[in-house]
């Protein structure tokens, strides 16, 4: 199944050119991961341009630039039927889960054909058709919801697993404890992924977090937990393969703490001047997951041109998505009152 950089075998590592790459890296897999990260980044870059240059995105959008390895590496191991909940910073997870970027971009622009009919926007993006049960505007709230999705699957006798993404800041709200305890008590097939980009809005999360390890918080509730390099898509994927494999086999919850870096501001209009001078540039240089994956593949013999083509394709796809969104009309006025509730609907009884 595709070329390999070295003969397949047990994962072994070797220093090449000062960097460590996996001997058995499957280049097609590596390229797939690169392509997914490029698509996420291109989507968000297009959205940001639409917001900044054209004023087309009216609400706040939170970009995951620099964090694409987490969504890509984890979700690579999910089936379409598996469930996922996400956060306000959920574009990447949603794309990786298989949602249509055109419908997503329309949603960001608040247009007809948006995946939520223009009612939710970026912060409530969802695609139930691919098991994406929603971003969330309330930090940490998706953790108990995800535990419940896994609980529901168990009650119904399904075999889907659930993945719950949340940020480092979310680990300081009660639902973190309540949701993880719940998953432990009811023995639920769920993977909790803390996507730690080191910031909570303008706050260095470490300054507002007691203790050294969020994984220890999960371990104290009986979960198997690991800390991983969230900027290395292959390391993420490897850890996810292990955890998700065990979850599918045992039905028991696990926890991954993926450390990454938020390259931009909290929202697209946050200049993030509160960061130590030089930090962002240094981190973009050293931790950027796309750059790292490109270097890895280059070392394995992949031509830059091939990778540039992947990037160009991703950009073209998302440019087209933005074009489609730009051209889409506003949602029909009558939809304003639809889908609130059946009983006592404002369509019949607004007052």
């Amino acid at each position, binding site marked *: 199944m595709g070329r390999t950089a070295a003969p397949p075998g047990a994962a072994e590592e070797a220093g090449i050119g000062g960097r460590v790459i996996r001997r058995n890296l499957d280049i097609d897999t590596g390229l797939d991961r690169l392509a997914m990260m490029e698509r996420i980044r291109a989507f968000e870059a297009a959205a940001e341009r639409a917001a900044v240059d054209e004023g087309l995105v009216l609400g706040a959008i939170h970009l995951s630039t620099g964090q694409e390895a987490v969504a890509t590496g984890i979700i690579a191991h999910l089936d379409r039927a598996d469930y996922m909940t996400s956060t306000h910073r959920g574009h990447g997870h949603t794309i990786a889960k298989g949602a249509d970027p055109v419908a997503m971009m329309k949603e960001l622009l608040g247009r007809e054909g948006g995946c*939520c009919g223009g009612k939710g926007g970026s912060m409530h993006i969802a695609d139930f058709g691919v098991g994406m049960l929603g971003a969330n505007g309330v930090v940490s*709230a998706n953790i108990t919801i995800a535990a419940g999705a896994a609980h529901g699957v168990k009650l119904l006798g399904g075999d889907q697993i659930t993945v719950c993404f949340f940020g480092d800041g979310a680990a300081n709200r009660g639902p973190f404890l309540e949701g993880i305890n719940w998953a432990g008590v009811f023995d639920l097939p769920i993977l909790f992924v803390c996507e730690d980009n080191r910031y909570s809005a303008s706050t260095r999360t470490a300054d507002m977090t007691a203790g050294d390890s969020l994984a220890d918080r999960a371990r104290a509730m009986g979960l198997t937990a690991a800390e991983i390099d969230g900027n290395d898509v292959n390391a993420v994927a490897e850890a996810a393969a292990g955890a998700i494999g065990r979850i599918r086999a045992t039905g028991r919850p696990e926890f991954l703490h993926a450390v990454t870096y938020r390259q931009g501001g909290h929202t697209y209009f946050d200049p993030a001047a509160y960061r130590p001078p030089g930090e962002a540039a240094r981190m973009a240089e050293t931790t950027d997951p796309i750059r790292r994956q490109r270097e890895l593949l280059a070392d394995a013999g992949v031509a830059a041109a091939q990778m540039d083509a992947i990037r160009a394709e991703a950009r073209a796809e998302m440019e087209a998505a933005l074009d489609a969104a730009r051209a889409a009309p506003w949602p029909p006025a009558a939809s304003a009152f639809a*889908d609130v509730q059946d009983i006592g609907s404002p369509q019949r009884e607004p007052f």
Partner: protein
Amino acid sequence: MAVMSYAEAAKQAIAEAMRADPRVWCVGEDLGRGGVFKQYVGLVEEFGPARVSDAPISEAAIMGAAFGAALVGTRPIVEMRFADFALCATDELVNQIAKARYMFGGQSRAPMVIRKPMGMWRSSAAQHSQSLEAWYAHIPGLVVVCPSTPQDNYAMMKAAIACDDPVVYLEHKNIWALEGEVDPDAPGAFGQARIRRQGGDVTIVSWSDCANRAAAAAAMLAEDGIDAEVIDLISLWPWDKAAVLGSVARTGRLLVAHEAVAVGGFGAEVVATVAERAAHRLKVPPRRIGSPRGLIAYAPNLEDQMRVTAEAIAAAARQMMEPAPA
């Protein structure tokens, strides 16, 4: 028609729904031992601990997890134990459950029944006595039910379980033992009031246990020759505006009675609606009777000052019948 208690009536409705639909399940603290008010006794024996599930003391997770489980196709009945503790899960109810279907553009439903035993119960003090139904009526996305009799607790529980919307289901914890006949074939309908007594002199609108007190007040008033109509709204959203407006058109007098704090209570909504739509029908100014805007004490003599009694309702109605001072 069987005679059963208010608690049993809801339990029977739940048991029947669980037999008919394997997606229905209950979750809350202590349910495996029947729940704190014994309103689940026997269910775990019939349906097992997965479907009549205990929970950690984690109201936020009970609400949030049940919601997640609803999103993937189950139909949870959530037990909050005391309506007061449900405040620990306000984000989950108001920001998540009530809004999900809309925010996600209709991709999802949250078919849930959220049971919140409410109201005063001798010497339970300020943190275990609240009536906050007005809050939920104010939140789009929620259906709100406040049954007052075994019949309605049976029929509305069935309707709530069958409903695809989240239903905030507020039982009054002072009347678990109240007995009454239950006709299992009389369906519950949201937004359809029960006329507890017909009368032509004054319309008394109430709900929850206060509707029982309103009915008692009407009996007292009848002895005085005052013919009160008692309307039990049963559900507050939707609520039966037609029944109230129709009755007021006949009586010309509106008295709304509820146990909750009067200021900002749902009685204000009822009075405001009538004032807006049928002011010309009113022979005397409308009136609300509810708790003063104070807190509920432990000591019974202080607690009693916050109660809306049958006597107080009758007294208010009598005043409304008096000829205006010259």
